[in-house]
């Protein structure tokens, strides 16, 4: 169940990343059309809430919330690395 919670948090983080146009462009190679960014944000928040509730159910409120924060921190890292991996090496934009 620990890893289920972690997985849900990572998927939630992915949805939150996709709700931002620059990360959506990186991960999917295209921007999400409206209203999908809002849907992704909603789903992301819902998944994070679900993970927090799952953590509290599994370990009690105190340890559950601490566990959820650990899931969120490391899960977001996983998504950031995914976006980095998808990013072309050369910077695209000129100033």
């Amino acid at each position, binding site marked *: 169940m620990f*890893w289920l919670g972690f997985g849900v948090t990572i998927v939630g983080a992915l949805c939150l990343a996709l709700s931002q146009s620059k990360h959506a462009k990186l991960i999917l190679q295209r921007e999400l059309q409206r209203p999908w960014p809002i849907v992704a944000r909603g789903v992301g928040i819902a998944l994070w809430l679900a993970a927090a509730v799952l953590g509290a159910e599994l370990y009690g409120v105190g340890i559950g919330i*601490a566990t959820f924060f650990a899931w969120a*921190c490391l899960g977001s890292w996983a998504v950031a690395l995914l*976006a980095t991996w998808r*990013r072309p*090496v050369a910077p695209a934009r000129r*100033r």
Partner: protein
Amino acid sequence: MKAQGFKGSFRQSMAWFHTWVGLVLSVLLYFIFITGTFGYFNAEVDQWMRPEQKVVAPEAMPTRQAMAETGFAYLRNAAPDATRYFISFPTDRNPSLYYYARLAEVGADGNNYINGYIDPVSGDKVAARETGGGDALYEMHYRLHYMPARLALYIVGIATMFMFISLISGIVIHKKIFTDFFTLRLRKGQRSWLDGHNISSVLALPFLLMITYSGLVFYTFDYLPGVAVVSMDISDATTEIREHLAPQFKPVEASGEQAEMISVRAILDAAFVELPAESVRYVSLENRGDKVAEYHIGQHSEGLSRGGALTKFSATTGQLLTDSYPAHAADVVFARGSLALHEGRFANIHLRWLYFLSGLVGAAMVATGMVLWADKRRTRLGKKGVAGSGLKFVERTNLAIIVGLPLGVAAYFWANRLLPIDLEGRADWEMHCLFLMWAASLAHASIRDLASAWREQVTLLALLFAALPVVNAVTTDVHLLATVRAGDWVRASFDLAALAFAAAIWLVARQMSPKVKQALAGERSDAAPVAGSRAGAPILQNRAD
């Protein structure tokens, strides 16, 4: 109207503050993060560093009563005059029975106690090599080394306060905290270091705030002695605080009258009518031999709090004295929760790994901040500018700290396997090896050109960790194959983690090779500069000065 600070706007002032507050004690903070992170696996590192310690399968583990008898029998032999016996039962993190006895007089070694480990099955003292183990590594994060513990406590306290201020000022200056939440652009010179610094601090912010704040809570009354002095009678302050924090541990004065002690087995038999045996963490005998002697039975803590329930029995009559205490005051509940969060003792093995990774992220945040500071100043100089001695010093010490400390840790593990078993002061020499390697790293960074020094030290780090399981296999019989076959996953995980770490470091080392850097520079050749940085300028370029 915009609020004005001492360096322009409020945000600019905070940026200045963040940079300098962070820089001044970054060396110490990096040290604290790296060594403290090992605390989440101190018992596991201990096991690896004591290869002689046998692992007992759970089904072969004796009952709590039998183990307590074994432990007390050992102590009666080893410390017949001791006034306090303490036995802590094996856990899934530590397979041995821990013993402690407070002696009536100071012993030949200058200590008024003895402690160590007993094999729970045979009852023999674990004849493990002398080593600092995981604890010595972990304790350095608040005791430092080669200095009085109290002085170290204050130094670490100041560094922690700096870190806390630095975190808060970092939040203030980070304009796009949510927009940049997942942003990590690698291979873009200074931009990458800034992203790395931002992402490691933003994503791990809850952990970093918690670990820093709770670190200060640990020694509140040492850091703020005035609170105790002004709020209570100075002579009673320490006692009152201790009783306020842990009323159950209020000491009982010995009566001076001798009395016969009831056996520990009888007491545990009585206790286990109400308590589940597996919930008991330790049993101790206080004021041993005295009429007022008591058995204390401590349980594992439940939930997010440090310290579990305590049940007391009279050691002379066997009567249950008390198993309930007044509820803790709100401040004590808060403090205990904070400390539990800091130590992560409640964490299962999976969460412990996440704690460990979060600790490394914290170290990465400090390290990227250090490199960023130097690289910004190097960028401002441009190609023709000559770096001052201050910048050169920081660049070289950055290497000696960021890579040198992990090199020292690797040397510490190597020393555990290679130093002669009967070497006097062996545990001290393990630690000396850590600092000698660290000093060697600094010397190397000082005499080599910087890019080569980075490449060589990172490569050496990868090699040292990759070869650690090999050294283990050559010098002990608990090598990776044997531990995997025996299901000793604690020791196997250590070897596997060393290999994984070596692989990750090897990838970093590869990025530093001239060929790879040349290829990357080619890919970036048409790239325009990112605002505030050189286009893809490699941070570890070969610097002649």
